[in-house]
């Protein structure tokens, strides 16, 4: 899957905005939005928030978790635990990136947040690589991956799955009499 498609999915997440225009309720296929009143916060999907922001029609309120103190706690916990800790949003990386790229003037301490989220991401990706390594070493057939986000899975998906398939084919050809997974594919 292309990272831009994961970002596309992240754009469905709701964020709070403060519009500077007024508009009645609108009935989108995916649900109702609004009404919009100047100065009153309202929930909209990220794709709409970013569009309005680019047209200077709103101010975006950062999600609750996008806060230096909370992220510092998360980073500490993430570094302490061996397993993946729960994330505040399944799309934390994408949302951070989109908001900081397009609405950084609405995010207090944007630079610190960027660094913190990057640290959390790096720690998690390092864990992911470690667990992928032991998964392959132990020749496991099943792994539970709670709290892992789609973007994180996506960084390793193709490489990991293709390697597993290849190893499976090579191995099953080593076992005499086994007909499964013959090297017919590719």
């Amino acid at each position, binding site marked *: *899957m292309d990272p831009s*498609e994961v970002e*596309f*999915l992240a*754009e469905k997440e709701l964020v709070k905005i403060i519009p500077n*225009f007024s*508009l*009645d309720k*609108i*009935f*989108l*296929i*995916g*649900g*109702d*939005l609004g009404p919009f009143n100047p100065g009153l916060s309202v929930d909209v999907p990220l*794709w*709409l928030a970013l*569009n309005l922001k680019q047209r200077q029609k709103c101010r975006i309120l950062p999600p609750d978790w996008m806060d230096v103190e909370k992220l510092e706690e998360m980073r500490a916990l993430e570094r302490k635990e061996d397993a993946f800790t729960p994330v505040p949003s399944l799309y934390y990386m994408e949302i951070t990136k989109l908001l900081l790229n397009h609405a950084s003037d609405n995010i207090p301490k944007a630079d610190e947040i960027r660094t913190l989220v990057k640290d959390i991401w790096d720690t998690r990706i390092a864990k992911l690589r470690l667990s992928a390594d032991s*998964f392959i070493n132990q*020749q*496991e*057939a*099943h*792994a*539970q*991956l*709670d*709290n*892992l986000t*789609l973007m994180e*899975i996506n960084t390793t*998906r193709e490489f*990991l*799955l293709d390697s*597993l*398939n290849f190893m*499976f084919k090579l*191995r099953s050809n080593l*076992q005499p009499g086994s007909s*499964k*997974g013959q090297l*017919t*594919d*590719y």
Partner: protein
Amino acid sequence: MSDALSDDGSDINQDDSQDVMTPAELIAKLEEAWLNEKFSPELLENKSEVVECVMEQLTHMESNLQRVKKGDAKASFHRMEIDRIRFVLSSYLRSRLQKIEKFFPHVLEREKSRVEGQPSLLSPEEFAFAKEYYTNTETYLKAVALKRMPLNLQTVDLLKAVPEPCLDSFVFLRVKEKQENILVEPETDDQREYIVDLEEGSQHLMRYRTVAPLVSNGAVQLI
């Protein structure tokens, strides 16, 4: 602002009274089908009902938008949403066509051996596409190579020549409905098979073959 846009098209599925879905649920269904199709190694059952309903919603909305003045703020929101839905829809259909092109002899073989009353993998349009693709490939192979071969080598069995989908591929999945006693087959001879329970909301990495029935009945979502 005209009333044209206030009609959210909630008349969906009127002709299908057993299973009433809101447009939002319909879009969610389409997205599920899109991700499942993207990540499963084999072609899944067609969701032409969902596709048709979504198409209906889109044309309905587009015809409403035609009646709206230019520069209307609401209309631009609607257009953006339509573009997003259209993207998912075409990406979904495209990934199905790619699989049909990749596995066409097997797809057609399954269609042939299908018992009356069993749902078809392919929509009528996809079936026509697969058949045409088969004929064209065959004609092409004949024209460029086969007819210049010695007589005894002039046929090719496409069913054997084209690789089958590899059901032993690993997939990532999220559990939507709790499943108990899923048998995990061992990787090597010195390992033993064992049983896992899939808790709701948990995520796993395992072979597609083990969970294929759960994907098709919607108990798990590929991610």
